[in-house]
């Protein structure tokens, strides 16, 4: 293993101001277009635009797409199962935050 000297890099936040096309998101997630199309069909991802070639995914959907793909691969879930798991995880998150607000210190 060779070592190279360190470099300083400015990180760019991938937020709502940035967008991915379908093919860009496919590449970033190392997946197949069909997988992402299935997640859009299930409502897990909500791109702007009326057809796959015009879809624009908000940067904040990257984390969601990756989570959905991890769950579907590792737990061997179909798109509908993945959508349900994500929805329940969102609900658990919201309940935890509520519990945190209500709980006495």
């Amino acid at each position, binding site marked *: 293993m060779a*070592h190279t000297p360190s470099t*300083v*890099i400015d990180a760019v936040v991938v937020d709502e101001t940035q967008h991915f096309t379908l093919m860009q998101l496919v590449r970033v997630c190392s997946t197949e277009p069909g997988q992402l199309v299935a997640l859009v069909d299930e409502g897990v991802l909500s791109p702007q635009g009326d057809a796959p070639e015009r879809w624009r995914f908000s940067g904040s959907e990257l984390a969601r797409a990756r989570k959905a793909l991890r769950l579907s691969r590792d737990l061997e879930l179909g798109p509908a199962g993945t959508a349900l*798991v994500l929805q329940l995880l969102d609900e658990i998150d919201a309940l935890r935050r509520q519990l945190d*607000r209500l709980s006495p210190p």
Partner: protein
Amino acid sequence: MEFKDYYAALGVERAATPDEIKRAYRKLARKYHPDVSKEPDAEARFKDVAEAYEALHDPEKRAAYDELGRGHRSGERFDPPPGRNGGFEFSGRDAGPGDPADYSEFFESLFGRHHGAPRGAARGSGSDHHAKVVIELADAYRGARRVLSLRSPVPDGQGGVDFRERQLEVNIPAGVRAGQQLRLAGQGAPGFGGGPAGDLYLEIEIAPHPNFSVDGRDVRLDLPVAPWEAALGANLAVPTPDGRIELTVPPGSAAGRRLRLKGKGLPGTPPGDLYVVLSVRAPTATTDAQREAYAALGRAFAGFDARSELER
């Protein structure tokens, strides 16, 4: 390197059928998957389970593992047989737990490394890599510089891959939130045939803080105050993730009162708010004077019922 007992990792017998292996994997995956599980060591446990499944669910790999592993026990020293030169090429699915570089050294010595340019492609851009970085809440307020050690595959010139360790200093901007992704352009896998390098994506995790909790850009602090501070009002110096600030507790405050410090949450457009939630802590009386003070308090609040909420 240590020998890994993949059967033990899945909790199955060596003679387990493929169906038993799949059932055991699915059960453990549901329990330890880091996206689902709240177990403290979920990530490490899941990695073990996924690696064991990767080795045992494929008949080719399972046979090779059984052959090589004969006579070895878990945790025992294991030296890969000579002449393997980075392991076999195996067919089958490439997707492992997270990034392929997550496999243990033991796994890679047996099955090789799942890297390299796609077969038949003469030129192309390198793949994008993903990693996670944990920062303190204060770093999210002020921005931070982090040194990352990355291990990435590079072609060794003989058709195989070698690993290169490199250090990267990353400027993380102020105002990042948990779960957000950062892009480091050109820091993923090198391209091949003159193609551009991929990007590196970092997922931000904010380490839990004993005093502050975070919800999006808003931050909450539970602030204990003395009964007289709540009743009479007070100017207090309170900690924020970005240093101390002066806070005015209005007179007549009760436990549970939320004070909003606008714009003192995580920076951004717009910045979040800092919510200070008051809790009242009464001291224990240990001297006669202190007991007398409580007695006087009791007389002054003769009509007060601390348990009015209990029985109705």
